[in-house]
Structure formats: structure tokens, C-alpha cells
């Protein structure tokens, strides 16, 4: 078995071919280990998905339930449900809940009782009480949630 390569006169004989096997094996193993490393590193850095909690109760920053009677009429409070920041507004005794995270660049929106709308302090995005964008740069509406009051706790569904 002899092959003449066009560009140089180096001949690949059976002996020289087999003598390359250790090098090829080493290269393959190093590449696969690096590939495995890369995959593992990426996996290590991506958060595990079990953080999606089943909780549906509105909690404050210390993890205590926010009671409905702590939100006065015509005011809003931001709390956390599961892993999502939620804005709850008491509008004449009716509770409205929506995502508190501005769809533009992720700032926390505020209920503005003087103008009756929801405003983002970062880039001036405004939303109405149904979460619809009525001004500014946000590309999407705020997600609205159904609210129930159970034993004074604010429960979202």
C-alpha cells in the first residue's frame, strides 16, 4: 500500500500510517474532552429549571405574605409571586394584578394614582390598567393576572 501525495513526496506507508494512530487517538480524546468540558460548563452556567415554584401567593421581599388590607384604596404594591415581580393595585376595592417588569428593559413599573396609569421610571413607558402600552418605548403589554383574596392573602392564578 503506497500513496503518492501530489504536493510533496512524502509517502504514506502502512507503517507510517499505523505509527500515526497514537497521535490521532490523542487528538481525538483531547477534542472530545474539550467538547465535553464545553457542554458541562455551559450546563453548569445555565440555571436549573426547578426554580419555577408552585407558589401563587403575593410575598414581600422577606417572603411574608402581603395582606390585601395593607394596600390602601387607589394605591399599588410590588411583590413577588413564585419568581415573578407582580404589581397589585387596589382600585376602589377591586384588585388588579399584572407583571411589574417593564417589557422594555426590565425596570419595575409604578402605579401613578394622580394620572391613573402605570409608569416605568427608566424610559417613560406608560401602561393603562389593563396592562396595555399607551406611551413610551415598551414593545409589549404587561401580562395581566386574575386575583383572588383568600384569608386576606393575595392569590394569583
Amino acid at each position, binding site marked *: 500500500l503506497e500513496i503518492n501525495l501530489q504536493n510533496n513526496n512524502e509517502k504514506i506507508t502502512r507503517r507510517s500510517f499505523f505509527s500515526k494512530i497514537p497521535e490521532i487517538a490523542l487528538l481525538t480524546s483531547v477534542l472530545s474532552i474539550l467538547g465535553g468540558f464545553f457542554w458541562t460548563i455551559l450546563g453548569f452556567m445555565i*440555571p436549573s429549571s426547578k426554580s419555577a415554584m408552585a407558589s401563587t401567593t403575593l410575598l414581600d*421581599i422577606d417572603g411574608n405574605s402581603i395582606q390585601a388590607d395593607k394596600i390602601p384604596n387607589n394605591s399599588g404594591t410590588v411583590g413577588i409571586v413564585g419568581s415573578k*415581580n407582580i404589581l397589585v393595585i387596589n382600585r376602589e376595592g377591586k384588585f388588579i394584578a399584572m407583571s411589574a417588569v417593564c417589557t422594555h428593559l426590565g425596570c*419595575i413599573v409604578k402605579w401613578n394614582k394622580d394620572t391613573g396609569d402605570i409608569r*416605568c*421610571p427608566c424610559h417613560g413607558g406608560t401602561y393603562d390598567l389593563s396592562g396595555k402600552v399607551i406611551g*413610551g418605548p415598551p*414593545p409589549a403589554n404587561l401580562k395581566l393576572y386574575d386575583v383572588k383574596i383568600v384569608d386576606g392573602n393575595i392569590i394569583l392564578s
Partner: protein
Amino acid sequence: MLKFIDNWLNERFRWNDFKSAFKKQLYKPLPKNITDGAGSYLHTFGTVAMALFGLQAITGFLLLMYYKPSAKEAYESVQYIMYDVNFGWLMRQMHAWCANLMVFFVILHMAKVFFYGAYKKPRELNWFVGVIIFSIVLTFAFTGYLLPWDQLAYWATIVGTKAIATLPLIGDFTLKLLWGGETVGDATIGRFFAIHVFLLPAILALLIIIHLTLMRISGNSSPIRTDEKEKTVEELKAEGALPFYPHHVMKESIVIYLTLGIALTLSVFYPFTLQEKANPFVTPEGIRPDWYFLSIFQFIKYVPGALGIVLVNLVGVFLLLLPFIDRSPERDPKKRPLVVRLGIAFIVINIFLGVLGAISERNITIFGKTYHIDIKGIPHRIDKDITK
């Protein structure tokens, strides 16, 4: 005794070869444009940036001894450093101010290389390395900004990382990778910390070595055409060119000491204050990034969404490929009026956008008249109708 050590070392690893190589570099003759006139001080900025990196390594190493990288403890540990640790305030202020000065000097250095056409053949590769160094320095600044975990740090990071998420396809994945969770939190501070204190210093040190080696191989640039032959070391020596040491080292030392003085003055008289501890439920009014990101911050207000981010990145790619785009043989700034004007325009636009970014969403008073500068930087007079 010295002779004995010299001999001993030489018998073991050819110490004399290292010594003569070092001396050759130390006394290397420099072209006239680097050594003569006040303009020669323009050629010290790179070294100043490097000296600041060295200082950052020292202050950073010391801050590491007390800093705690977690959402629960970071803020308190920085407070502890500032108020309880001996000279803690000095270490933190110097770290923060020298970081700003480092970005500043890297920009100055790049501007000098740009205007003197020093990125042209045969130094394209080193410009390339330099632009990567610039991006590493900005990543340093961005990751370090979060670590004090106050309101400003937290929300600037939210807005800065969210801007990346508007990119199509890779945006959401990149955001998740950066945050390590559903939002900026414990996981984020952990990875920003690890990147800031381990990965980036290693990469930057390596890149600086490559940058200096390439610079030493190609020699300092002179303002001649790329198709003219540059003077060799022998030719420079023959015409009595001044050596790197002590001549240029002296100038570099002067600028480094001045910079240190400025950093110390700023640290004492204009210290960085801590805002309230980060609160994921309350976004403060008028958050904005550090000055070197202000122009980008303002630009993406006019061009929102993925397009703005893509355009900003295209500017980066353009900078990276500059030596391959601008291939004219002239280096002398007087003979490249178009490129020089474009460069000045680019700087002016950046400063203009940066100033708009700094004053937007604020009330300012000029000549007794109060204006509200809106988000896009347009002033509205407000003192007539508002009487609070």
C-alpha cells in the same frame, strides 16, 4: 558577590541571554516623533493604562480580602470596607477611580493610534488586539459595577443586560447565561464576581503581553507612508536616536505620577458613595450607566430594540476591522483629512450623546430658567407652570 550570583545563574539557564535581550529592549532607540516635542507625551497613554491595570490588581486583591460576593452580604461587606477597615475607603475609592481613569486612558491611547495612522500596515494585528483589550476593559467595568450591590449597580445591570436580550435568536439565551436565573440576583453576583476577579485579569494580562510583544517587534510607528521603509534599529542608532530608557520611561513616569495624584485627589474629594441597598421591587428614578456607556445608553433610546444593539455592535466590528477598511498608505494626519474628520465627528457625536444621556430625565436650571430634559434629551421649560 553579584558576579558570583551572575555566574551561578548563567551556568543554569543561560541567564546572560535573557539579560542581553532585556537590555536590548530597554535601550531600544525610538523614532523622533516618539521622543521629540510636547507631542511625545501623547505616546505615554498606553503605559499609563497598563500602570493603572497594575494598580487595579493590587487594590482589587486587597478588596477581595473583605468583599463577600452574595446578594445578602455584598452591600454590607462594601460598607464594612468603607467605614471599618483601615484604609478601606482609600482602596475602594482608588479601585473605582482608577477603573474610570483606565477606561479614559485606553480611549485616549486608541484615539492617538487612530489619528497618527499607527494601525496601518504592518501593525493591523496589534490594533486588532488593542480593540479586544478595549472590550475586555469595558467588560471589567461592567462586571465590577454590579459588585457593590446598591440600587444604582443593580438597576444599571438590569437595564444593561436587558438591552442584550433584545437581540434576535441568541438574546434570551445570553440573558439567562448572564443572570443565572430569572432576574439579577445571587447567581448573577456570583458569576460577575468570578469573571471580574479571575477570568478577565488572566485574559487581560495575556493580551497585554501579546500587545507589547507585537509593539516591540514592529517598533513604534512614524508618520510616514506605509509603502516607505521604516528605519531599522541600526539606522536609528546611527542618527543618534534617543533610547527608550531613560528618556521615554521618564516621560511615562511623569504622566503616571500625575495620574496617581489625580486619582488620589478624586478619591479624597469626590468619593463614590453607596446608594441604598439593591431592592428588586423599586426602580429608582433616573438611573444611568457610567460615563463610558452613556452615549450607547442614549443612542438606544433613539433606536430601540435589536436594531440599536446591532448597530452599536457594528461600530465595534468596524473598529476591529478598521486597518482592513482604511487601507490608504498615508499615516500623517495632515494627509488624511477625510479619515481624521470622520474620527473627530465620531468623538463629537459620542460626547454629544453622552452629555444628553447624562442630563436626560433631569431638571436643570440655566440663567434662572428651569428646564426638564426629557428622555430623548429635548428640554421643556417648566418653571412657568409648575409652582410647588
